[in-house]
């Protein structure tokens, strides 16, 4: 049995939405180098919709795949939906993660929620 599902490997090998948004209006960074995982999410939000999203990740295969999948799940979505994104949804969309890697999907959820908080702080808007 392979370590990861085909979907995890696909998102790890060909991560979607990699990079930086220079004029992002919501940025979230979670994790720390000591534990071996850092995720940074850049959101470009217009009219309460995530028009663009990019990520940078330092971490293992499942951390990179979780970041990639999370960006796919929220791109083009209204903020009310993005607010509801859970780590479980990320893990399920990846056809599951090994138990000891579930924290990678948690990081992805936290990175996105942290970017949303940053957006609210910058704009004074509530979601």
């Amino acid at each position, binding site marked *: 049995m392979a370590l990861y599902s085909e979907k995890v*490997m696909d998102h*790890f*090998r060909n*991560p979607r939405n*990699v*990079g*930086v948004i220079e004029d992002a209006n919501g940025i979230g*960074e979670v994790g720390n*180098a*000591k*534990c*071996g*995982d*850092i*995720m*940074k999410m850049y959101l470009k939000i217009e009219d309460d919709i995530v028009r663009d999203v990019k*990520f*940078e*990740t*330092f*971490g*293992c*295969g499942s*951390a*990179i795949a979780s970041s990639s999948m999370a960006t796919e799940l929220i791109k083009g979505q209204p903020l009310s939906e993005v607010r509801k994104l859970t780590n479980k949804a990320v893990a399920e969309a990846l056809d599951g993660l090994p138990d*000891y*890697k579930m924290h990678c999907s948690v990081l992805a959820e936290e990175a996105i929620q942290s970017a949303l908080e940053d957006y609210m702080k910058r704009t004074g808007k509530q979601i």
Partner: protein
Amino acid sequence: MIYADNAATTKMSPAAIQKMLSLMKEDWGNPSSLYTHGQHAKETLEKARADIASMIGAEPREIIFTAGGSEADNQAIRSIAALGKKNGKMHIVSSAFEHHAVLHTLERLKEEGFEVTLLDVHENGIVRPDEVESSIRDDTCLVTIMTANNEIGTIQPISEIGEICRRKHVLFHTDAVQAIGHLPINVVQNRIDLLSASAHKFHGPKGVGFLFVRKGIRLIPLIEGGAQEHGRRAGTENVPGIAAMATALEEAVTSMSLHTPHLIRMRDRLIEGLQKIPHSALNGDAVNRLPGNVNFCFEGIEGESLLLLLDDRGICASSGSACTSGSLDPSHVLLSIGRVHDVAHGSLRLSLGEDVTSDEVDEIIASVSEVVAYLRGFSPIWRDLIQGKKPFIL
């Protein structure tokens, strides 16, 4: 496929496979049986014992067969601890970067009231003999220091340590799992009292190993239930595995002088190539290391993703990152030589086999360089480093 994980396990030698097969097909008797068929197996077993003993300068009765290196480590340490306890000597000296078969056994002994001193291995990954000497106390029963480290390959001054132990009347055990068949070892010249070895690290089968124990030192069995191995290890002997181990060790020892110069050339070529990657560092001493061992840290990336992408390119390697161990902490070996967590997560161990070619080494260098650059391209840590928001460590 380029297999560069020989410290994890090695490919079996064809002669060892042949030996195993013929014993499984023909001489499959139980060495404890008295009829001729069983006694043939007994002869095979004792010949393997004599052959292995002669490879390390031991006597046949000083070799006992185990199911691998971990069992040998456990039995050696437990036996000497039991002896020590009887004599009121409950202090053991070891090093911070031993294999877990040693460290976890020592942890258990601490729960039983033993005191353990774990010596510093310093930046170069080498224990200092003078520190071994000064750590030995009146109540020290055992010094256990590995011959060569399994992750960073650094070779320990075991002869000097053995000499000190002999002078101080303390028993000396060495976990030689990574060294046997790769470095010349003679238990008499190196002043070794107990030594652990594992067949699959020198092209023998898995699940077989041996423990050398100098005559006169009493071993306590970890496994009870029979008189095999003179009552020191119960259970019907794995004759095919043991005989194949002897075949593999003989091959490894006799071809060592041929293989070592080539391996060292390949190792140094690989080190030189990987050092060209910016903000990287070799882990452990550059000279006093196993002929095939290369271990690097690359700043700004994580080891597991590096391994997966190398696997995609057909390169088998390993890492000391937390993600490859299933815990949050990176390798205790890298931490013991002073690598901080951030950097230790980005480690790569490449352990070369004797048949590696310079083209393969060059392919490894090219692939690692590309993959490291690719992963750094979207690493938030790397961005902070190159933008000067954080200082480089390497």
